[in-house]
């Protein structure tokens, strides 16, 4: 297992509702726990993944995710079982959409 | 272990246990507490590492039901020696889980009808064969040389894809993988391991059978399962898990 941590400062989109869990820790899939937290305007993402050695790819996927949403005061935790970047991005977007009441 | 040797050690006052195709049933005399008169108890179990198929599960259930109907409040000792559920297509076709559940329910019914129920793993206890017998008792005990497990480490390694030597190493320190009664003791699955005078142990156990399922609490006290009881308490109580 490998843990990766990301912190993006100065977002502008806050999410109000209670913590949500999206996705499942199954082969090629992941779960995303997303919750509001006082982080001084930052968005943090903690990843625990069964697929080791893909830090650079995670970094790029997380960067693009934050580019899309500009989240502020949001804490995200991920348990991953070898999901591809496409699936990771999809789940993250679903998690945000769920918080926004769009799903 | 030969069940007759065991029975002689457990019941010096005498017993009338018979074996039919690995199924044990009968009665035995057990001394009362502090010199009180001996009492007759029912003995039900299996021997020869019996695979638990539909017939033997049903036979045990029959013996339990008969005891409940004919001998109210008579204590029951469940003798456990099984290699687990029988691994046959026929058993699955006939719904073996229903037979095992039926056995479990019969034991539970007996408990609710005032029968003290004690389990004893005297040789081998594996997964499905154990769960509806010894693990359904008020309290389950084991002999020191008993084997208790869900499956062997090689098979576990194959299924979990964790290398066997890693499992073997972890098993030394973690009761959660390794076979053996002391691990089940630490996790609360066993009330105690019996050394020495078995007759005395069985007499005491029958008289001191706990009411209610305190295994998670025992596992917490003994350090073998540190989270089960806190999780149960958290759900029943304020919703927050107090970890040690």
């Amino acid at each position, binding site marked *: 297992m490998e843990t990766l941590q990301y912190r993006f400062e100065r977002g502008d989109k806050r999410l109000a509702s209670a913590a949500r869990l999206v996705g499942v820790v199954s082969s*090629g899939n992941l779960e995303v726990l997303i919750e509001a937290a006082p982080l001084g305007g930052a968005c943090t993402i903690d990843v625990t993944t069964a*697929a080791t050695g893909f830090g650079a*790819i995670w970094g*790029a996927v997380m960067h693009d995710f934050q580019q899309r949403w500009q989240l502020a005061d949001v804490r995200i935790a991920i348990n991953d079982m*070898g999901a*591809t*970047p*496409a699936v990771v991005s*999809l789940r993250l977007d679903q998690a945000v*959409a769920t918080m926004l009441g769009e799903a | 272990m030969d069940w007759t040797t065991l029975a002689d050690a457990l019941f010096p006052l005498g017993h009338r246990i018979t074996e039919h195709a690995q199924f044990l049933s009968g009665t035995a005399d057990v001394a009362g507490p502090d010199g009180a008169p001996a009492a007759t108890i029912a003995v039900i179990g299996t021997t020869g590492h019996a695979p638990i198929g539909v017939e033997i599960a049903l036979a045990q259930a029959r013996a339990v039901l008969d005891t409940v109907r004919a001998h109210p409040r008579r204590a029951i000792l469940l003798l456990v020696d099984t290699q687990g559920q029988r691994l046959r297509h026929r058993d699955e076709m006939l719904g073996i889980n229903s037979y095992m559940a039926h056995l479990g329910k019969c034991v539970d019914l007996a408990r609710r009808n005032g029968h003290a129920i004690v389990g004893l793993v005297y040789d081998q206890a594996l997964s499905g064969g154990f769960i509806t017998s010894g693990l359904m008792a008020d309290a389950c005990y084991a002999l020191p040389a008993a084997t208790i497990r869900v499956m062997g480490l090689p098979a576990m390694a194959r299924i979990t894809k964790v290398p066997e030597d890693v499992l073997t190493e972890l098993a030394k320190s973690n009761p959660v993988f390794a076979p053996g009664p002391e691990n089940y003791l630490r996790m609360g699955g066993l009330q105690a391991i019996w050394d020495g005078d078995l007759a005395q142990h069985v007499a005491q156990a029958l008289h001191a059978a706990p009411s209610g399922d305190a295994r998670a609490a025992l596992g917490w006290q003994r350090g073998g399962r540190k989270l089960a009881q806190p999780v149960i308490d958290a759900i029943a109580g304020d919703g927050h898990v107090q970890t040690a």
Partner: protein
Amino acid sequence: MTAPNRAWNTLQLNRDARLQRARATLGADLAGKALPSARIADLLHAVLECGDRVCLEGNNQKQADFLGQALAGLDPARINGLHMLQSVLALPEHLDVFERGVAAKLDFSFSGPQAGRVAKLVAAGKLDIGAIHTYLELFSRYFVDLPPRVCLIAAEAADRHGNLYTGPNTEDTPPIVEATAFKNGIVIVQVNRIVDTLPRVDVPGDWVDFVVESPQPYYIEPLFTRDPALISEIQVLMAMMAIKGIYAEYQVERLNHGIGFDTAAIELLLPTYAASLGLQGKIGRHWALNPHPALIPAIEAGFVESVHSFGSELGMEDYIRARPDVFAVGADGSMRSNRALCQAAGHYACDMFIGSTLQIDLQGNSSTATLGRISGFGGAPNMGADARGRRHASPAWLKAGAQARAGRNVIPRGQKLVVQIVETFREHMQPAFVERLDAWELAEQAKMAIPPVMIYGDDVTHILTEEGIANLLLCRSDEEREQAIRGVAGYTPVGLARDKRMVENLRDRGIVTRAEDLGIDKRLATRDLLAAKTMKDLVRASGGLYNPPKRFRNW
């Protein structure tokens, strides 16, 4: 001038000698052309000669498995050094013949399940590979320089005269028999049963020498069955992009689909998503395709007008029989397939091939070769190649050709659409895009003349991933081509190394197209779009006519 004393009929004489030996060996056990299965080894020992070229029928679907087992069990002291000709090495006994020394040389096309063992036997010096072919090449060589002395084939049934019914799974049989029978070779066939009257005659009896009723029906693999339950949301998204970005864009009417879940997803989106775009009757009308169960909903919706097949597919027999307007069906009602003709059809009569692959390099070359496995090609290279001999026009062919030639002073012609559809990462985070194909290393290991490329980059017109579509027809330089590929390679190292500014420029020019550029909302890419989500749904769609193999059921 004529050569003095030159005998011109040595093959005939040799054939007569073999038949004579067989008759002598089998004696009264030979009834006409039929012999008991217990005597198959005696027959083979009698008719075979050391070093013979032997064609054993077997492809990715049906297998002459009984004859294959018999061959593998021969005494290598009596029969050895055989030169095997085979479409596909699928069964363990196909390699046992080499392991045991009965055979020594191999010309073949594909060895999927046995690819690892092939590589080991080559390394051990027990197997000498002549060449790895595509199906069409291999069949062609049977007629030119590799005619079999003996062929071992499989048929559904034979009559007393040796006439054969090969039925829906005719597949490779016709060219094998023809190449053998008309070069004085010996044709031996295993049949599931011998009957008085055949439903129809697929191979005339006078081309057949020996018939044996095998103890078990021949083995057949349901290779083209994909359980819709296993199609992912990402595959649905890619299928939407394929339909809107390529099928609709080029009005693709005649096509071939490669095998896999990506293309199964497209098939299952035709009656739903494609229909909602008004594409029925405009795309996907005529197919060179095995009878994919996933195509049933599109057939039932009237989307698909005709299907010509390489082989059949287990469980589809009754459905095919009930849809004779769509499939190639004989007067008896059952399907007839023909791999050689369907390969030609896929090559010349289709406007598009779309299929998956394992690796794509920066030139667009694609390969399914991986280290330690000599797997070969099968049919994909013939499907996934521009048919340079094609002369008839169609809108899709013309548009592709026009895009490739725009701005260049060359004579107009069309081009086949060759689309590679891949997710950027395969299982276990293996990137589908690489700087250098594993095929290079495999070629070095196995001492091949050239790296085993499945589809050459200069034939590939589009690469479709979940990140977008790269239209290589529109690229005007090697650099553009490379950046277009990097532009759809997502988070793979190849994709991360793209020149972002240049990729945005390519996007402006329509060379790289994202889902949103096509007006596709990714959130709508759910499994609910699939016309069938389970095998049971396929059975329902077929009106109960499709009977899936046992391994695909959950009922």
